[in-house]
């Protein structure tokens, strides 16, 4: 009886894994990027379709010190495109900020391939730019090939 129960549980777990794989583009997801030089970390994520190809998605952005304490974002701009294909984003995402978090609504990646994304965040005393190169492929998690932090102004360390 115990063996049967274990087998059933194993089957349920396996089917869950299979279902999880097939529905991977509707799942929530997030990614963090760190700069020890600037004592900053940025988390980007979405409740649905994070980095999925051809799905409209809304991102949440959080700016923090490396110890996790929040850093207020005064303004955020977002842009991107595919340098290899010489085009920009297929939509016009809209941004809003609230304390240490920001929202970018209306992002869509219409093609597989490398997308160059830029988040410019104004904070008290410093402007921070995070440049990301994300390679998107079907059936695979996003591959963030590079994450470059740049800053202008003084930052309180």
């Amino acid at each position: 009886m115990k063996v049967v129960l274990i087998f059933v549980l194993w089957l349920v777990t396996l089917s869950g894994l299979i279902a999880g794989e097939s529905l991977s583009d509707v799942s929530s997801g997030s990614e963090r990027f760190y700069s020890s030089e600037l004592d900053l970390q940025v988390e980007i994520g979405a409740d649905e379709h994070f980095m999925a190809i051809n799905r409209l998605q809304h991102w949440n952005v959080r700016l923090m010190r490396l110890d996790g304490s929040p850093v207020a974002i005064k303004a955020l701009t977002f842009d991107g495109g595919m340098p290899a294909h010489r085009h920009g984003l297929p939509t016009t995402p809209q941004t809003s900020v609230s304390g240490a978090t920001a929202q970018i609504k209306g992002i869509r990646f219409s093609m597989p391939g490398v997308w160059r994304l830029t988040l410019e965040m104004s904070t008290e005393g410093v402007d921070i730019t995070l440049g990301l190169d994300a390679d998107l492929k079907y059936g695979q998690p996003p591959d963030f090939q590079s994450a470059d932090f740049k800053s202008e102004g003084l930052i309180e360390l």
Partner: protein
Amino acid sequence: MQSDQSNSIHWLLASIIFLLLVLLAGLKVIAPAPISGESEVATWSPEEIALLRSLSLQRDGELPSYEGRTNEYEGSAAAASLGHQLFFDTDLSRTGATSCASCHQPDKAFTDGLAHPATHVQAAPRNTPTLIGAASSPWQFWDGRSDSLWAQALEALESPLDHGLSRSDIVSLVSTKYRPEYEALFGELPASDDSAEVDRAFTNVGKAIGAYVAMLKPAPAKFDRYVASLSSTEPSGEPVELLTKTEIAGLKLFISEDKGQCISCHNGPLFTNNEFKSINVPDFSGTDSGRLLGAEQALRNPFNCLGNYSAAEKESCGELLYIKKDDPELYAAFKVPTLRNLSSTAPYMHSGIFPSLSDVLKYYNHPLQRANDHLDIVPLGMFPHELQQLEAFLMTLESGVDIAPEWLRPPNKRQVAMIEYE
């Protein structure tokens, strides 16, 4: 003597080897042949199989539909039935000779086989696109100036280049020919010429047509069956339908990131990312601004997702809320079309300028490049045999429409008095 013996042994060995070779060759000849003559079992990486599944109709079962966001009658059999009748009704035109089916002919995958409709006399006429799978596109028309099938139908009904009717004309026709069906679905027809009521009835006519057109989904094609066989974990006992060597070579080119690059824009189960791209295809005037104007028109369209006649919650109108506009990239950019059922939809491209698929592929090899133009493609530089392989693969996407045949024929005509419009 020894030499003779040695010669005999050599001959014997040679004979045995010869017989073995013949036997092996014979075995090869009589071995079970692949299912279709020159079929091939190709090897694909797990990543490639994931990519092929993303292109296949079986991936998630149902195709997503944008029509249902704004059209609350999508999925209603009664609405689709009324829409079916309206679609084939030539009384729904000023001349009494034009129906939706005049340009969207079922036997041509709902196109008309012409570069552009004969009645389209504007400077830059456009080719009639297929309606099969159109509900899965967030944008209608080559420039995407409508965001639903019903709004697209309403524009065609009013356009002097198509049906050429006023809203009052249409309500009058429905009142004469389809009153019971209409009122069972939408309530009473307007009793007066009140423009708000007429607009509402006009919208309902579009939504009935939209409900019918939304049913026109592509049937699984040879390619879909092939992909299903790749990802099947439980052999069904059915013979696996393989693609030929040429078709597989074409498929590999199609998904190749450095060779064909087709997958960049022609992705998803309908082989389109529903974007607008500029590839400098010649038109008949060189003045068609494409999506640059289409995006503006989509925003202004009173029948759009955000309009008063839409059933959608504002938040679900993401395509319109975050629309790309006023961008030079959109000049002369046109909707990336589906690649399913291409054998029935010639001629090709927004201007219908290429009579054959091989002409289209040759163009991608040597696209028109003008200084300062934004161009979304690069010359492919493929060999002629590779273009033929691509074309062979594209033909594996032929399937027609997944619907009972009676929906593809005009319904039984009613006997009514001739409608005369002023």
